[in-house]
């Protein structure tokens, strides 16, 4: 018998994951959305705040939304202090999460390289590296030659239509296996006695005046001391039932995966200018993401030219990818805010909390969101790290504009 193909397989999942719970009539906290954010929030509510009478309600299958559809990049090298603080908090949690959950999350700190293709992108990159370092985040500026050392298959030829002029490099950044992260959290929650209720769609809210006291679901009403939304692209639909309009737009975000390939790509490379980001995941498949499709959609599908453009960029940057094959494409629904930063905090309704607008950045923030959101829910006040992410900023004008200078949304 030939040996197992090295690296083409993943560690086995444990024999016990979580029980499929039926909803009780009432909980201290109901979390709407059983994705990474909902699960992590429940986890830290239990672990940091001792609250375990929690239901996580998921309309489909657990972690089947963007958690199952993202390209799993984890980094914290954001431009603005507010974002950097939150994402770095998340990254530090990531660094201990595998041990804490006792689950192979396959968190691989292989570094993330954000390419610059124009003089302005170089300026922006240097600016961001400087800000990151002063914020205590590991970041380096690499010139084109150093970028090629970090990723030898990267085409740094000056003949490219938009040559690589350099890039920012965060060594502690990397990827993790999304399902394992969700299941690790879910298993821990199951052991903590939290109810994970699948196939339970929230259709509205129970109110007492301006207070939200529960949710209506496809499996009946559920009373709740507090209700926390963690529904990503579907947040607007839920908020609409309360007449609460949010500065959110839901867009398709497409990604694709290749067949399993021998290792060629040691890191994660992102290019905002040519709209592609790519890593080689644990089994050897190339995982590529594109820019978001421009229009509002809940349809979980995008347009084909987005895929073509993404692959043109990929083959330009990585000529060796020419005959790799796309074996599956898919799309998620991402909720995007005007400043490309999330919205977290209280709402005009007592007992109702929101966490949304993560756009393409939700996965990497998972433990950080859980930590801070749990604090917000438990104490009914924003966590200091997420205070700037409140809805008020759209009124005051104190936006945290991460698409201007940071230039990289993923």
């Amino acid at each position: 018998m030939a040996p197992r193909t090295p690296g083409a397989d993943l560690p086995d999942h444990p024999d016990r994951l979580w029980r499929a719970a039926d909803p009780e009539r009432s909980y201290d906290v109901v979390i709407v959305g059983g994705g990474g954010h909902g699960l992590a929030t429940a986890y830290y509510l239990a672990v940091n705040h001792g609250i375990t009478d929690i239901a996580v309600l998921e309309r489909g299958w657990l972690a089947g939304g963007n958690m199952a559809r993202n390209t799993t990049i984890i980094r914290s090298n954001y431009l603005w202090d507010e974002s950097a603080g939150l994402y770095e908090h998340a990254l530090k949690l990531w660094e201990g999460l595998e041990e804490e959950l006792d689950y192979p999350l396959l968190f691989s700190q292989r570094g993330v390289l954000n390419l610059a293709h124009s003089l302005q992108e170089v300026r922006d990159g240097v600016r961001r590296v400087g800000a990151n370092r002063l914020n205590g985040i590991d970041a380096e500026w690499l010139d084109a030659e150093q970028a090629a050392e970090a990723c030898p298959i990267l085409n740094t030829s000056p003949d490219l239509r938009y040559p690589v002029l350099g890039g920012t490099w965060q060594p502690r950044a990397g990827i993790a296996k999304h399902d394992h992260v969700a299941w690790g959290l879910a298993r821990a929650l199951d052991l903590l006695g939290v109810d994970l209720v699948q196939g339970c769609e929230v259709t509205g809210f129970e109110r007492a005046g301006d207070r939200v006291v529960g949710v209506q679901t496809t499996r009946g009403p559920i009373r709740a001391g507090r209700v926390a939304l963690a529904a990503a692209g579907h947040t607007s639909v839920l908020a609409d039932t309360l007449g609460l309009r949010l500065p959110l737009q839901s867009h398709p975000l497409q990604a694709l995966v290749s067949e399993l390939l021998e290792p060629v790509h040691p890191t994660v490379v992102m290019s905002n200018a040519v709209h592609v980001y790519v890593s080689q995941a644990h089994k050897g498949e190339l995982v590529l993401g594109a820019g978001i499709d421009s229009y509002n959609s809940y349809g979980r599908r995008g347009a084909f030219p987005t895929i073509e453009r993404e692959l043109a960029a990929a083959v330009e940057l990585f000529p060796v990818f020419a005959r790799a094959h796309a074996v599956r494409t898919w799309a998620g629904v991402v909720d995007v805010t005007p400043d490309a930063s999330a919205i977290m905090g209280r709402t005009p309704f007592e007992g109702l909390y929101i966490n949304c607008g993560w756009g393409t950045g939700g996965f990497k923030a998972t433990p950080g969101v859980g930590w801070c959101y749990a604090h917000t829910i438990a104490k009914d006040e924003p966590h200091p790290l997420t205070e700037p992410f409140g809805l008020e900023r759209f009124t005051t004008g104190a936006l945290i504009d991460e698409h201007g200078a940071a230039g990289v949304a993923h």
Partner: protein
Amino acid sequence: MMLIPCPWCGPRNEVEFHYGGQADVACPRDPDAVSDAEWARFLFFRANPMGAFTERWMHRAGCRRWFTVRRDTVTHEIRPVGAEQERAVTV
């Protein structure tokens, strides 16, 4: 690839168009008369329904005219909307 009915050039592939989001968002007539919160609603808050959505497109690669369609944000099915539709002030 959606086939979007430009009222002037006829149906064209979506890549020819620029998306404009919710239609019928009018700028407050007297911006000074609205509060900061109301102004923020005009600037940043847009409908984001799942299902039928009245939205704007501009035929960037064609006649460069803005127009309104009603599109289902789940199925992507599109219906044209009459040009005579009333513009509503949402603020």
